């Protein structure tokens, strides 16, 4: 490098100096933001194909919605139960992978109330693009209300998204008396109609709803038994992009082993396609006579 080497040395020194500055500044910022405050409240975050579930420190559980309080530090413990996902709140630049068998942590204090998007940022299959949840940052509650903070959070949840506890109990008792095969395609006199979500339905290509095409009389109550281990829904419409989706009937999330009920008295006569919001390739059709 004799002769004209000096220019090159000056240049390399300048580049290296810039890089050292970038590295040192990044290291310093990262060091500060990774320090979790001692009073941070833990929220467990579980990613699954293709929904998010959350568990608060007091045991309250939420699916696809997360309610947190403004100006309160939270520590997220993130994992997955099937494939890799990534928990991402773009507006708060929160981002870390959800890896099965590992718990990754993040923390944040939300300083502005509002509704924010939670999305999946690691390719996870069929509905990766649709694996979204909502984050609600709510104004901090007063001292008195803080004791029942969890109830405050649940009551603000729109009722359509939260499976009603009474409904669940009722239908579980029904489920024991109904045959799991459920090939009754029309309403039996006096009895309800059962729609079974089969085991393994979450895997694309496997049999999902039994029966796939269900015929009922208007006013019948349909018991939906989820005998799978995964959560599912029975939601009217062809897919999530259908504008009428969820308007006629929607069980919202039915956890594995649970049941729900659809009341057809408010559903118009005719054929209505339905699908599972979590696994959109699970489809079926309901005909109301």
């Amino acid at each position, binding site marked *: 490098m004799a002769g004209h080497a000096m220019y090159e040395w000056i240049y*390399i020194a300048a580049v290296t100096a810039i890089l050292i500055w970038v*590295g040192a500044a*990044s290291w310093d910022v990262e060091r500060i933001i990774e320090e979790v405050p001692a009073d941070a409240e833990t929220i467990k975050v579980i990613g699954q194909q293709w929904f998010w579930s959350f568990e608060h420190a007091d045991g309250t559980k939420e699916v696809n919605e997360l309610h947190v309080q403004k100006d309160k530090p939270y520590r997220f413990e993130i994992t997955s139960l*099937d494939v890799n996902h990534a928990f991402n709140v*773009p507006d708060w630049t929160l*981002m870390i992978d959800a890896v099965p068998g590992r718990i990754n942590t993040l923390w944040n204090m939300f300083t502005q109330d509002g509704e924010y998007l939670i999305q999946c940022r690691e390719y996870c299959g069929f509905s990766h693009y649709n694996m979204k949840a909502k984050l609600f940052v709510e104004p901090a509650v007063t001292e008195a209300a803080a004791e029942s903070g969890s109830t405050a959070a649940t009551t603000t949840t729109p009722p359509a998204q939260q499976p009603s506890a009474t409904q669940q109990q009722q239908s579980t008792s029904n489920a024991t008396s109904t045959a799991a095969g459920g090939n009754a395609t029309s309403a039996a006199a006096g009895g309800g109609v059962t729609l079974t979500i089969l085991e393994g339905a979450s895997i694309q290509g496997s049999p999902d709803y039994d029966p796939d095409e269900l015929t009922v009389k208007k006013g019948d109550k349909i018991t939906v038994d989820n005998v799978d281990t995964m959560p599912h829904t029975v939601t009217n419409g062809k897919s999530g992009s259908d504008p009428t989706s969820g308007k006629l009937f929607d069980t919202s999330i039915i956890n594995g082993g649970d049941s729900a009920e659809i009341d057809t008295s408010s559903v118009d006569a005719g054929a209505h396609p339905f699908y599972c919001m979590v696994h959109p390739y699970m489809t079926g059709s309901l005909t109301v006579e």
Partner: protein
Amino acid sequence: MVLEVKKPRALWEIIFSTHHTDIGLLYIISSITFLMMGGALALAIRAELFLPGQQIIPDSNTFHRFFTVHGTTMLFLWAIPFGAGIGNYLIPILIRYKDMAWPKLNAVAFWMIPVGAALVWIGFADLGWTAYPPYSIIRAPGPAAELWIFGLKILGLSSVLGSINFIVTMLKCKHPDLPIMKMSLFAWSILSISFMTLVAIPTFAAALIMLYTDRLGVTGFFNPALGGDPIAYQHLFWFTFHPEVYIFLLPAVGMLYEMIPKFSRKPIFSYQSGVIAFLLLSTIGFASWAHHMLATGMSFTEKTVFMVGTLAAVPASAMHVFNWVATMWGGRIKFAAPMLFGVGGIMLFFASGAGGVVNTALPLDFITHDSYWVVGHFHLILMGTVSLTFTGFIYYMFPLITGKMYNEKLAKIHWIAAFSGIIIVFMTQHILGLMGMPRRYFDYLPLPEWIAMNQIATTGAWIVGLSYVLMIYNLLKSSVKGAFANMSDPFNIGEQYYDYRRREPHH
């Protein structure tokens, strides 16, 4: 097709030849074919994303298959074979030997590529080109995933065989009068990537076998349900594929060292600094693999180590850029098409390198990771730097291969369209990523700014696509009807071109 200047030959003579120029030509033609095939998938992906909602691709599964095969094709069937093809064509000429060291092995290495390509394209898997477990083990449908695994296995073996051949050719068959420190910098680039391939590929080859037995259910290396660790796969994968980034890049760097001094009519600013930068990149390139995994939940120490490792590779790349700029400085530059593509490649190399520094700066990585920023970033290096330079070199080699001259006007139109199109697509994708749009999305939220950005990107992609159709037309037409080139100096720059008269007997 006219393949040799004076003596046209039957097609089968070329196909079954073991001569380095014939095999080089087969590599070049097949890799350009795969560039067009992979490009067609990219245009379909961009058309799908022109508007939110389902557009032209029927469902998300098909979309995932499209981007998987697009990525696999562009990396393993375009970038690597094209570098190997030019290497085959030029290395024996540059080191003054009659052929590659092992001509038959050379032919075998080439013919593994169509086999691997067929497996990848017949399978049309949906793993994503990274094939991360557990998805690739417990969810990806077979036999597509198995075909992908075996396809990549074969392609990996092909590049290992090719690399051994290059190393032996250069180190053992080089003309005794040619000292290694006088060897062309393009030859140095191929020598560097051949060594890198030998070190890097075996790790991924092992990971592929483990992935396959995991899919069979007999092992659980990466399956958490059987006690395995999905992150282990990512380490093995990126230990191969971060160095692989340099394996894609360095042939383009070497080609720029061939073109820049000639079109600037000046000697290279510093030959030694070029060699040193190659050696630095091919060693430091192995110290940064886990910067692809900063968001998998690594410890603060690990993250710091890999950030430092990544930043350490930057000065070596900067040395190359400095060398090119200093070579051009004060030269009488002739902006023929190859030079335009080369200079465009250098500009985008600088842009993507700066973006890479942003990616690795720890707090910023969590904004950009797995977003469209990353898509824009690596396309800027692979499309902007590597493919633009490769394209320039196609034009540069065209007289040597065909004896004809391409249409310079069409080639310049191609450059304007490709260069501006690439900026439109991939700079826009950087912004889209900062707005929060994740990559590998079949459908996106109908936010006005996301829609606008996607539409700009799609338009740019179609401009690039059309410009490459123009290139194919130009190459085909010129090789049949083009004017005969002045073979001692086809670009009228008063510099020595390759020795076209050198025709060793075919085996």
